[in-house]
């Protein structure tokens, strides 16, 4: 089903934020490959670095943050581009066109002062997909229809505040797919929505993916959404990838103590659970992260080496990577 052709190769991606309180080591040496046509999920709890990773891929890191290390190779039609080496002008040619984003909060990604038709049209216009905004608005009707917006002919002239949360997210997806991207990066696209609306939007992303053959990088903290959508999964903890495998392996044969703990802490509505198992302690500060494995203070299997040496992400079986000394 999924090819073995890499579309993205992320190597040692590291982002720091230089704040008054100290240097926040938001992500450290994050490496993963994304295959063409797959849905690759980044999962983890608040603050573990999912959004920073997703944004860094196209240099979307603002001051006081800086990408301090790493390469992001983007493979297209036999050529390879290091996205982090491109200048501000050059990366803009890719961002929003070949690599598009959908963010969690549709409210903040839409401009309240412009009609949604104008905003979809503008996305087309800046990438020269249409000759004028007017032509773009006509195309916007079709795009809104594709994302199952009710009454698209009327809705194009609506402003964001006139739409429900679900409809706004449809518009941002419309803007995301307007230029027929090769990679769609969806950062918690349904977290702000109710479950019945979430089900509609996830369906829509699946349909769009099938129709346009796009590759999806999905960011979520919801293991249910991962189970539904992902082909492969990277589990992040405190700025590092701790485990990476296909979705069935992650759920059935997790190896890293954090992945195992996380899965046991998630209630399953189909199963009568007498007692959830919780992970003791809390996520560490990223200004002074624990030495060695960042999970070691919460890990019941930690030994001396876990406190002194950072475990590398190693392939323990075909396609299953784990960063653990255990």
């Amino acid at each position, binding site marked *: 089903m999924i090819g073995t052709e890499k579309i993205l190769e992320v190597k040692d991606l590291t982002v720091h934020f230089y704040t008054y309180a100290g240097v926040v080591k938001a992500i450290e040496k994050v490496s993963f490959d994304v295959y063409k046509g797959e849905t690759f999920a980044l999962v983890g709890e608040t603050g573990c670095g999912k959004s920073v990773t997703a944004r860094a891929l196209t240099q979307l890191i603002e001051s006081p943050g800086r990408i301090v290390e790493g390469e992001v190779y983007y493979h297209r039609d036999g050529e390879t581009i290091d996205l982090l080496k491109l200048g501000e002008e050059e990366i803009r040619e890719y961002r929003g066109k070949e690599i598009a984003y959908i963010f969690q909060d549709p409210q903040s990604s839409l401009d309240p002062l412009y009609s949604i038709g104008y905003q979809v049209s503008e996305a087309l216009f800046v990438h020269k997909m249409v000759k004028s905004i007017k032509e773009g608005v006509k195309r916007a009707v079709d795009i809104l229809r594709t994302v199952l917006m009710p009454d698209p002919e009327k809705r194009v002239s609506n402003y964001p505040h006139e739409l429900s949360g679900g409809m706004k997210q449809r518009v941002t997806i419309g803007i995301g797919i307007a230029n027929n991207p090769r990679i769609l990066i969806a950062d918690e696209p349904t977290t702000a929505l*109710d*479950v019945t609306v979430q089900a*509609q939007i996830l369906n829509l992303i699946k349909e769009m993916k099938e129709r346009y053959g796009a590759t999806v990088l999905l960011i979520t903290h919801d*293991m249910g959404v991962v189970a539904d959508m992902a082909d492969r999964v990277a589990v992040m903890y405190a700025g590092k990838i701790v485990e990476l495998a296909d979705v069935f392996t992650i759920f059935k044969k997790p190896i890293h103590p954090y992945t195992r703990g996380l899965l046991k802490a998630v209630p399953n509505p*189909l199963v*009568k659970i007498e007692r959830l198992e919780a992970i003791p302690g*809390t996520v560490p500060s990223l200004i002074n992260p624990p030495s060695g494995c960042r999970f070691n203070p919460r890990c019941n299997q930690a030994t001396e080496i876990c406190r002194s040496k950072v475990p590398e992400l190693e392939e323990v079986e075909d396609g299953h990577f784990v960063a653990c000394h255990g």
Partner: protein
Amino acid sequence: MEGMQGMSSFSNGFSSSSNLLEVRNLKKYFPLKGLFFTKGYVKAVDNVTFEIRKGETFGLVGESGCGKTTVGRTILRLIEPTDGQIIYDGRDITKFKKKDMDWFRRKAQIMFQDPYSSLNPRQTVFQIVMEPVNHHGIDVHDPEAFVIDLLEKVGLNEGHLYRYPHEFSGGQRQRIALARILSLKPEFVVLDEPTSALDVSVQANILNTLKDIQGELDLTYLFISHDLAIVKYMSHRLGVMYLGKLVEVGNSDGIFEEPLHPYTKALFSAIPIPDPEIEKRKEKLVVKGEPPSPINPPSGCRFHPRCPFAREICSQKEPELKKVGSDHEVACWLY
């Protein structure tokens, strides 16, 4: 199941002895203020009836804006009901005057969703936990020992006594809020999305603590959440709300086993199951559209415009809750 309908009036009377709380035809309409006149009402809670038994956890689920918080606050009279009765331990609290209300305010407490805004940042943990006790003028022999005991119940300790809220994580703050609630030795606690601001690994901890102290201190809970998996984990009985109405109510395991209302079915089917073997193969019942506004709710059954099974009567006449099992009621014309 048909044959059991006639029994509904009997068993209502029968079970009332073990009910701690009975909510009868509760309404809360918020006026929409125009320049000179009231322009209409937000029917946030519209004719809701259910009971909560002593010692149980009653889960209230539904999507954003369906009225869960309004139910929770109205039954504590933190906001005044528009209409209806709230019978607590046999007495209608809507009729209570100040003295009785003081008593009720000790017996019934609420825990809010937001662990950041619910604690006074300038008070120490000790002051925060003692505040309700002082407010009610209750004499405590050894305040420090009293607070330490409460902290230990909720998984904190003596070392936290003189620290300030900003020194704690979200999960720890919820524990402080809980210790404060317990200081009044309540019987009934409304838990309004107590973990929805927390990460899953921390959430599991708090939910377990809530379960533990329920048995230990003989508490009855109204557990409000939009997360069905959590409600399943916590609740003995369950009510499903849609747009100000209770559409299904009864034994939690029973409803999870066989949800009857099309909205409940849609809601259950929409929750992604954290198991790819099941989730990827699951047949999904995706309902169209989004919940409409509670200002001008649809006629008849409020779910009918989104319901795949809607018939003519559904848009004309509102279905009442109807008994379909020993502890299972549903408001739908299909049954």
